């Protein structure tokens, strides 16, 4: 009768365990690779840009000479974009989510709209740029004004906000609404007074995240022909503007001609990243502070 060869068995077992341990380290290194690149990227941007980043840079006007150039125009442009994007996406995004979750009958129409939204989320941002160029700039005659850029970016981030708002509404337990109905409230009263307040923190978190996506976006703005020239500060929705990402784009492109432009681009990137970081911190704060678990 053949018996198990203990030494041979042990040897093989050891080899298998060793393989397991080695690959565990490999997997860990792979995970850390992405983080290492992130660290290099941040360190690189900060070492290049920090020296150029001062109050004059932030409040200064655009200039062709690197020493005097500032980004106030781009900063204001980004703020104006937010002025358009925030109300438009909130109204359309939350409205669509309420309709899909609470009013639409489960059926063909509802699943059609739902499929449509998830397909829209996968459309490349540059295609939205062409849509904006055709509809907002040319047909509606908005040119490359704040409103055209803001509406284009709003359409771009809408799918994100609709889906996250839907999840927020779905997370509100049914019994809250039932209690409201039981007290004699109508459907809209229930939504207005019970469902929306309960889901507001999650909706706001999603809104901030989609907003931060919008202000980092460059491709649709390049299609709209947003300049980075010596233009006056935008003062309204119909003014020409430039935005932080566009400023970074032009300075990066021209960095092969004027070496200092690379540092200016890096300094602008720091401003943009700080802005995104602040927005995300607010989102996390809201989520942790106001989110109730039922």
């Amino acid at each position, binding site marked *: 009768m053949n018996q198990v060869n203990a030494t041979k068995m042990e040897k093989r077992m050891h080899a298998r365990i060793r393989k397991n341990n080695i690959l565990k380290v490999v997997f860990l290194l792979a*995970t850390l690779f992405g983080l290492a690149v992130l660290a290099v990227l941040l360190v690189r941007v900060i070492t290049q840009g920090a020296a150029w980043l001062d109050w004059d840079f932030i409040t200064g006007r655009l200039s062709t000479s690197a020493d005097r150039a500032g980004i106030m125009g781009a900063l204001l442009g980004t703020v104006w974009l937010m002025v358009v994007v925030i109300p438009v996406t909130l109204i359309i995004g939350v409205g669509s989510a309420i309709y899909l979750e609470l009013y639409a009958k489960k059926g063909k129409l509802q699943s059609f*709209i739902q499929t449509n939204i998830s397909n829209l989320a996968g459309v490349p941002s540059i295609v939205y740029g062409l849509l904006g160029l055709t509809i907002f700039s040319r047909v509606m005659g908005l040119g490359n004004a704040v409103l055209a850029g803001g509406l284009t970016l709003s359409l771009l981030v809408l799918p994100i906000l609709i889906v996250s708002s839907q999840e927020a509404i779905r997370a509100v337990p049914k019994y809250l609404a039932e209690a409201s109905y039981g007290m004699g409230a109508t459907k809209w009263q229930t939504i207005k007074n019970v469902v929306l307040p309960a889901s507001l923190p999650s909706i706001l978190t999603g809104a901030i995240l989609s907003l931060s996506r919008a202000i*980092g976006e*460059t491709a649709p703005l390049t299609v709209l022909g947003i300049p980075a020239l010596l233009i006056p500060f935008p003062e309204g929705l119909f003014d020409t503007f430039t935005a932080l990402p566009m400023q970074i784009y032009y300075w990066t492109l021209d960095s092969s001609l004027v070496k200092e432009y690379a540092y200016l681009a890096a300094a602008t990137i720091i401003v943009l990243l700080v802005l995104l970081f602040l927005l995300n911190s607010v989102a996390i704060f809201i989520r942790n502070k106001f989110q109730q678990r039922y």
Partner: protein
Amino acid sequence: MPTNSGNHKQNAVNVREMIEEKRNSRNISNITEKLIPTILFIIASISVLTTIGIIYTLLSEAIEFFKIVPIWEFFTGTVLKPMSQNPEFGVLPLINGTIISSLIAMLVAGPIGIMSAVYLSEYATDKVRKVLKPLLEVLAGIPTIVYGFFAFTFVTPIIRSIFPEVEATNILSPGIVMGVMIIPMIASLSEDAMTSVPNAMREGSLAMGATKLETTFKVVIPAAFSGIIASFVLGISRAIGETMIVTIASGSSKNFTFDITQSMQTMTAYIVEVSGGEAAAGTTIYYSLYAVALTLFVFTLIMNLLARYVSRKFREEY
């Protein structure tokens, strides 16, 4: 007595008014109850309108283009010279550039993404995962223009210092950086797929004496396969649609070549170049914008539908 009856009368009027008021407000709230769903439906249909708008603008302008340049010539032409005296519009150089940059990106993001997913879902303790995963997702939140800057001013010089024959703008560097950008997407989608494999299956394998590694490769990954493939397809779709990194770091040469040390243009970068160059509406080059965008749109749409099909069709139910 008269005062009393007067009081009485006043009260009666008040009650009647109150009833009237109540009825009116009920009417108003009835109207809002009926109006609100209609308004919300109109709002919700904006997303459908967006889709119709995209398809309509792309198709109508692309059809204008195909009236000037035959569709067959467009899709088989290997020469793209939109600015020259005798312009030629062959889209193959752009498709080639798009596919090559996406391939490079997936060669980086595929293996690293899936290894990260394995580590996060199978090996990492809860504590480690709670730190690593959000950090990894920061990568996905960085604007693509920043990656473009990074590729152009950091990665390209490094590649050129090792391989001097690489051009100042080349497809390799943006491809690699695009891969890094896609890692978190593949990692987190694959990890979701792996985490949803029930523990009973893992325990069965471990109880039979398999190591964690063997369990991962012979049980968990096959069980989560459809989700992993879907994450790859979505990654490719993301790479195809990515614009700023390739626009900045890969230049605008429209060569039909497979040499990754050279500059190549992707479909997205072409759109940026031509539209930023203020092509006058109505010219052939302006219409070519929409033909290229339509091609891009169809590419990404197919990828997205494929991803959904794969994850739905081949999902194992436990």
